């Protein structure tokens, strides 16, 4: 088998065989021959090539051939060879052949038997073809298909394919899970029915078909069990090999899960960030020149700068602008001096918050003495820094306090001493710290201090305790103390803090205020002026033992000063001053009273105002005298308030203020007393006048009563005689009198009787004035009914229609209201006398919210122009023969109503009836109380 052509004994011509061999070689098809008798095998060159062995090195036998076959395909090959030899015509075989390098090839072999004349198989011929490329492509294709399917199935997202008719053609497991329907149920069903909005779902895949794809299409997928999940669909069309669209591939994404996942991510991110934040130490390195070269991840993580931003001097951009210049200066100085770098600055965190950091750095120096690099550390000191600032702040508060704030140990040793303490007690801190607190306590109050310390040891605080203390200069001061125990961490009392306030001034003012109050009280108690003034003077002298005070009063008429109060000046001095005229240059007080301005004489012996009184001053042992004029509220001088000293003395502002305020107080006292006297005088006058008036009134009343008595007794008696004797005359001398005489006598009798009536009426009127009013609720309706009844009984033949509104109540005097109604109803009765259908009405109407009572009749009425005359005594609008009466009735009514404080008026017209109105004042709130109580 040297050449391929020769190895085979082909059935056709040699040319044909050659051609055949050529073409087979071109087609990379190898050929072979097996002699069944000898078991010899012949291969063409191509066959050798296909099997990857060479003609020279490979001894071709059946066994060596079989050794080339892939072990997995060996059985297959043997069976094929048997089948071929049995002439079962098994067709082609696909098998793998192993190459010497271990790789294998896919081969395709064919074979057929060559028969001799007796139809016995003599040899087998066949071809072999390398199909590896095709086979691998196929394999790859198949594997890829499996892989995709697995991927699809493994996807957590529901995936479906949809046909052009909208029917589902395939689904994955996730879709089954999401819908709750099985694959079998889903395939063939309409895609849209699994959504809350089928129309929208349909529009979605239609859009995909139309446009090729749809992205993030929101839909709500409904599970079989009713739950709904929000999904976003991505869909795209897929096509056949020919490029025709055959369906839509749609993938849903459950957003709920996505959101959950998103939040999980951001949570873990936040956790990471906080972790970074928590790591407050930043380690850094720089070049010997102080420039950042290497990444500083901790810095970046903290500041949020990128590593590149930090490089060089970029890190300074994360510093607080206010700290930048200083930091740079210190850093550059450290680099220059090769000395350790140490600074505090504010560093901006990634979220923009600045926090205090302490930065430290040292140069790393190698053996040659040159700086290799700088290494350093930045530490977050923010919280401790703030705490420190707070402490500093508190300390500055303590230091700046006006109050003394003192710390002391339980053994009374002073531990701390602020500026306030220095101001109040006079000691500097370095003079007093370490000394016992008792140096501040007056000797007589030692026991009090012991008591305080005892209480403190028991943990009891003391608040606003007022006591006395000694200043460094020995002066006693009043202080208000608040002392609190200081406890250690286990609650044991280890010392005390004392807050002391100097209340000396306050005490002084309190005392002065008390004095002021006492003075004003005494004023109202009617204590004599001289005593009150003495009290003022003594108070001032007690408050300041160096002062001798005096109050002089100015007598306006004579222009002289009179002694007010000067209890501490000698009598001879006061006697000399008393009656001293005022004028410019006449001592301090004389000048002050004259000019109305304060006079300050610091040294009597040298001051010109005192020229005439120097000896007097020497004898009285006074050396300085300041005088403040006491001014009235109208501004006129009413006296002087003076303060003397035993030695020449210049007043402080406080002295002058005190003097002025005392002058003011004295002015109030004097003016008040003057006003009081004036009021008393007025009161006395008033009382006198009241007494005189009352006496006048009483005598007038007595006169009136005597008059009434006399009238009622004496005026009537002659009338009785006139009437009686006229009657006797008429009777006894009837025969001697003619008709005219008898008529005349009758006239005399009538006149006398009328006179008697008039007297009675005028007496009644005067009685109304004198009688005491007793105000009680009066039922006017009932009263009117009684009066009406009386009238009916008196003249039963009269027909009068009485209409009385019930429940007319007034607060009035019942007896007098009876007189009123008798008169008014009597009048109405009288003046309706000629009316055939007389009508009298009593009632009440409201005017301006108050009741007005009225009595109306339909009688003859009157002309309103006479209305003002109606109420005059003895005023009549009709003749006696028309209507009888004395004309005193309405006068009485008016008198009564007026005495009640009310109003009465009458309206009417001729032949139109008349209406009398009366109203009472609104009862005051306490009126009823008075009458009921």
């Amino acid at each position, binding site marked *: 088998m040297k050449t391929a052509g020769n190895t085979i004994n082909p059935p056709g011509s040699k040319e044909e065989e050659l051609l055949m061999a050529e073409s087979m070689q071109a087609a990379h098809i190898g050929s072979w021959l097996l002699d069944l008798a000898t078991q010899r095998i012949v291969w063409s060159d191509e066959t050798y090539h296909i099997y990857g062995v060479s003609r020279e090195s490979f001894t071709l036998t059946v066994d060596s051939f079989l050794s080339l076959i892939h072990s997995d395909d060996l059985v297959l090959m043997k069976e094929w060879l048997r089948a071929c030899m049995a002439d079962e015509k098994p067709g082609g075989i696909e098998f793998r052949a192993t190459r010497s390098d271990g790789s294998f090839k896919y081969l395709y072999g064919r074979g057929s038997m060559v028969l001799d004349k007796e139809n016995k198989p003599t040899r087998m011929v066949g071809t072999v073809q390398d199909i590896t490329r095709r086979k691998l492509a196929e394999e790859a294709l198949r594997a890829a298909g499996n892989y995709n399917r697995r991927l699809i199935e493994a996807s957590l997202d529901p995936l479906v394919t949809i046909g052009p008719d909208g029917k589902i053609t395939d689904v994955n497991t996730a879709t089954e899970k999401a819908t709750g329907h099985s694959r079998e149920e889903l395939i063939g069903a309409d895609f849209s029915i699994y959504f809350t909005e089928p129309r929208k779902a349909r529009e979605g895949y239609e859009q995909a078909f139309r446009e090729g794809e749809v992205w993030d299409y929101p839909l709500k997928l409904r599970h079989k069990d009713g739950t709904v999940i929000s999904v976003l669909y991505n869909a795209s069309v897929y096509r056949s090999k020919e490029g025709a669209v055959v369906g839509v591939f749609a993938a849903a994404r459950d957003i709920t899960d996505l959101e959950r996942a998103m939040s999980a991510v951001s949570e873990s991110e936040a956790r990471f960030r906080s972790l970074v934040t928590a790591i407050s130490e930043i380690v850094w390195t720089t070049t010997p020149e102080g420039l950042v070269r290497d990444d500083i991840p901790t810095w970046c993580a903290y500041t949020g700068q990128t590593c590149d931003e930090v490089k060089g001097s970029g890190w300074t951009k994360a510093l607080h602008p206010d700290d930048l210049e200083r930091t740079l200066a210190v850093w550059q100085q450290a680099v220059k001096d090769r000395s350790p770098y140490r600074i505090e600055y504010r560093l901006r965190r990634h979220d923009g918050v600045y926090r205090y950091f302490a930065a430290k750095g040292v140069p790393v120096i190698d053996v040659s003495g040159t700086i290799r690099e700088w290494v350093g550390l930045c530490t977050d000191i923010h919280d401790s820094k703030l705490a420190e600032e707070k402490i500093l702040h508190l300390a500055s508060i303590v230091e700046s306090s006006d109050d003394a704030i003192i710390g002391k140990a339980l053994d009374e040793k002073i531990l701390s001493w602020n500026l306030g303490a220095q101001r109040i007690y006079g000691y500097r801190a370095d003079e007093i710290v370490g000394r016992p607190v008792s140096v501040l306590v007056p000797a007589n109050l030692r026991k009090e201090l012991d008591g305080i310390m005892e209480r403190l040891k028991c943990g009891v605080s003391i608040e606003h305790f007022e006591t006395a203390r000694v200043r460094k200069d020995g002066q006693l001061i009043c202080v208000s103390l608040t002392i609190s125990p200081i406890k250690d961490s286990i609650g044991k009392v280890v010392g005390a803090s004392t807050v002391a306030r100097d209340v000396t001034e306050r005490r002084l003012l309190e005392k002065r205020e008390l004095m002021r109050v006492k003075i004003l009280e005494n004023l109202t108690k009617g204590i004599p002026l001289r005593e009150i003034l003495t009290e003022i003077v003594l108070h001032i002298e007690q408050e300041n033992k160096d002062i001798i005070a005096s109050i002089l009063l100015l007598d306006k008429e004579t222009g002289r000063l009179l002694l007010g109060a000067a209890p501490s000046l000698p009598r001879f001095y006061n006697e000399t001053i008393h009656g001293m005229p005022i004028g410019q240059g006449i001592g301090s007080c004389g000048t002050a009273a004259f000019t109305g301005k304060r006079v300050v004489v610091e040294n009597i012996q040298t001051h010109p105002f005192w020229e005439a009184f120097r000896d007097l001053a020497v004898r009285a042992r006074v050396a300085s005298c300041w005088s403040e004029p006491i001014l009235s509220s109208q501004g006129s001088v009413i006296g002087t308030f003076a303060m003397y000293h035993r030695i020449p003395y210049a007043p402080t502002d406080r002295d002058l203020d005190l003097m002025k305020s005392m002058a003011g107080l004295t002015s109030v006292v004097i003016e008040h007393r003057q006003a009081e006297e004036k009021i008393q005088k007025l009161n006395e006058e008033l009382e006198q006048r009241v007494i005189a008036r009352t006496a006048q009134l009483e005598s007038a009343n007595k006169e009136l009563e005597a008059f009434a008595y006399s009238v009622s007794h004496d005026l*009537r*008696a002659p009338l*009785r005689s006139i*009437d*009686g004797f006229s*009657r006797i005359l008429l009777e006894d001398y009837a025969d001697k009198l003619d008709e005219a005489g008898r008529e005349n006598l009758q006239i005399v*009798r009538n006149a006398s009787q009328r006179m*008697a009536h008039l007297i009675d009426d005028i007496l009644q009127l005067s009685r109304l004035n004198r009688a005491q009013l007793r105000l009680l609720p009066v039922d006017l309706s009932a009263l009117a009914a009684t009066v009406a009844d009386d009238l009916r009984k008196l003249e039963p033949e009269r027909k009068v229609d009485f209409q009385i509104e019930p429940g007319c109540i007034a607060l009035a005097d019942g007896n007098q209201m009876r007189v009123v109604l008798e008169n008014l109803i009597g009048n109405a009765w009288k003046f309706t006398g000629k009316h055939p259908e007389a009508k009298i009405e009593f009632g009440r109407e409201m005017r301006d919210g108050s009741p007005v009572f009225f009595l109306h009749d339909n009688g003859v009425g009157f002309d309103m122009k006479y209305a003002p005359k109606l109420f005059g005594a003895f005023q009549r609008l009709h003749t006696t023969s028309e209507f009888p009466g004395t004309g005193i009735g309405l006068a009485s009514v008016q008198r009564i109503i007026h005495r009640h404080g009310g109003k009465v008026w009458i309206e009417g017209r001729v032949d139109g009836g008349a209406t009398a109105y009366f109203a009472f004042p609104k009862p005051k709130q306490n009126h009823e109380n008075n009458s009921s109580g």
Partner: protein
Amino acid sequence: MKTILLVEDNPDDVKLTKRALRENKIANELVVVSDGVEAMEYLAEASTAAEEGTGTLPSVILLDLKLPRMDGLETLRKIRADERLKRLPVVVLTSSKEETDILRSYDHGANSYIRKPVDFEQFSEAVRELELYWLLLNEPPPEITAKA
């Protein structure tokens, strides 16, 4: 015979009273005194006489208030203060109807208070009724009638 004591200073009124008594046919003895002093003198004598059985006390005293020397109220007070006279019926007969007069009269123990009307007819009627009441209807205290 029952006696009436009239204490009245006005002679006109005395005359009118007597006329009224006469017109009313009252025949009882009318003793007239013109003031309180006289009245008390008369009553002192009358009570003595009554005790001795030689006379009687008046059955009623008609007492005017406004009188010279001793007025009506004072007289009334004296009568009521006198053991022998205190039960005598006293009718105040006066011109006044002042409330104070009325109140004081009763306060002092007047048995009645009559105002003299100006109209003689009315006056006469009042006198008649007085006589009828005090002399006929009224049962006097025993000291007046005992020895009568």
